[in-house]
């Protein structure tokens, strides 16, 4: 079942084309990888999917609904969320507050329910707090609950960012270089975590990563970008053999038209 579809997606900044006519689909329940050399347009695609950038041309469909003209928070509300390459936590808040803040979509009480502490507020707030607590346990962050996010070691900050994203109960989770700065051991743990998230939260995952072990180890489908265009797509075995991909990565004479 198709969850996300990009159709001739194009984004230009002034005269510079960052993404050009990219097409691919992401199937429900899959783990897909988005790879390519630096500047290939990977993060730009994430920014387009999440509505942070406005699409220049082309379309993005989520569950067959066009989302390319929607605001970021609306897209998030539909079930797409992400992490950032350069971690963007609520730095001065605690681990618990970071997650709790992101839980807001699981409640619908209004401002007056809150101001008057009505029953609806009290019940929903209790549920939110329980859920946030469970999430921290699941992500093995309970021990850090009251620590300020900024004071966490780097690897845990990454994990907290994923936990915060999961608080939305997303259908599609976009991870932007989740293994950046991790050692092989941590990377292996992360791979297990990503699989577990897919299975336990039932969400589809699209991941940008430079660690090839991770990409080849967990992805069902890999999309390769180069200079803003799609170069290849397929399962890991096929991508590993693809001469075009090998050339782009080893940079033999560069790509035509570069």
């Amino acid at each position: 079942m198709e969850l996300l579809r990009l159709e001739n997606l194009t984004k230009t900044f002034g005269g510079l084309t960052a993404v050009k006519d990219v097409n691919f689909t992401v199937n429900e329940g899959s783990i897909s990888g988005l790879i390519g050399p630096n500047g290939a347009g990977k993060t730009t695609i994430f920014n387009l999917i999440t509505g942070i950038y406005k699409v220049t041309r082309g379309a993005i469909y989520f569950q067959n609904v066009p989302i390319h003209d929607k605001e970021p928070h609306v897209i998030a509300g539909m079930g797409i969320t992400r992490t950032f390459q350069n971690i963007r936590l609520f730095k001065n808040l605690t681990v618990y507050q970071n997650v709790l803040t992101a839980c807001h979509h699981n409640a619908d009480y209004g401002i007056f329910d809150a101001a008057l502490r009505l029953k609806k507020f009290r019940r929903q707030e209790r549920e939110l707090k329980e859920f946030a607590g469970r999430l921290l346990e699941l992500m093995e962050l309970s021990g850090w609950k009251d620590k300020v996010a900024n004071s966490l070691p780097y690897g845990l900050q990454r994990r907290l960012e994923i936990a915060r994203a999961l608080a939305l109960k997303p259908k599609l989770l976009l991870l932007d270089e989740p293994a950046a700065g991790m050692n092989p051991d941590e990377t292996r743990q992360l791979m297990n975590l990503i699989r577990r998230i897919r299975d336990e939260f039932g969400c589809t995952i699209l991941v940008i990563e430079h660690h090839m072990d991770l990409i080849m180890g967990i992805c069902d489908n890999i999309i390769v970008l180069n200079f803003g265009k799609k170069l290849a797509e397929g399962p890991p075995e096929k991508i590993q053999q693809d001469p075009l991909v090998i050339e782009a990565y080893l940079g033999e004479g560069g790509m035509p038209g570069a």
Partner: protein
Amino acid sequence: MNWFYIEGVLILAGINIIAVLGLSLLTGFTGLFSFGHAGFMAIGAYSAVYFGERMGLPFAVSVVAGGLVAGLVSLFIGRLTLKLKGDYFCIATLGFGEAIRLVLDNVQVFGGARGWPGIPLKVDLVTVTIFNIVGILFLMFLINSRHGRSMIAVREEELAAKVIGIDTYRYKVISLFISAVYAGIAGGLLGYYLTFLQPKLFGLQKSTEYTIMVIFGGIGSISGSVLAAFILTVLPEMLRSFAVWRFVIYGAAVIFIMIARPQGLMGGKEITLKGIAGILGIPGRNRKTARSGEV
């Protein structure tokens, strides 16, 4: 020092607390800077007195209605500028605050620059205290809800707030609205306490003074704001002979706070009953000062 004088200072402190609470929501919790809060205060003050004295509405109703008028005006300003980057909002509020003052200077119905004298005295310590309690409770309950947390998220990291589904624009508008209502109510109370109104009362200096109180108390702390508003109203009254240097010291202190202790007096923490018990050494189940957000 007689009681009459002390009561007067306390009433002024209470009025300042209301205005600072509102600004605290906007600047301290949502991270938006306003140089026009004196303008909202002026709108609240003149509307309240108009409702009360020209239309004959009861005192409490006219003060609250004055606050709502200020809120409505803020919606207009907010819709225009809150989609833009922070600086534009800041400069727009600055222009707005001055424009309001200049308009009032020229509107003869309200007395123009000479002011509006002869307003009956209707504010006493009890009234101000009631407004304070309601104001503090509302803000506390708001901050400790999903709405308050969303506002804090806007302050902390706007982009991240957006991708976890927070309508940052909407929350900025709401925050500005509530904050303007507080300012408007404070204005109405001020008018009914001073018994006269003058556009001059609501200059840029007033707006910056309130911002300073928020900063002294600490960004993101309700009790800090209350404490700072109180101290910074009472202290200058006691040090009258020192008045010329007051704003020199404020200026230096603001820079110092930003450099050395940006968390201000309270450091983003709140005074809670549990916390006080903890300091006094009374055993309790949970002996720590709660951080804002989980009181």
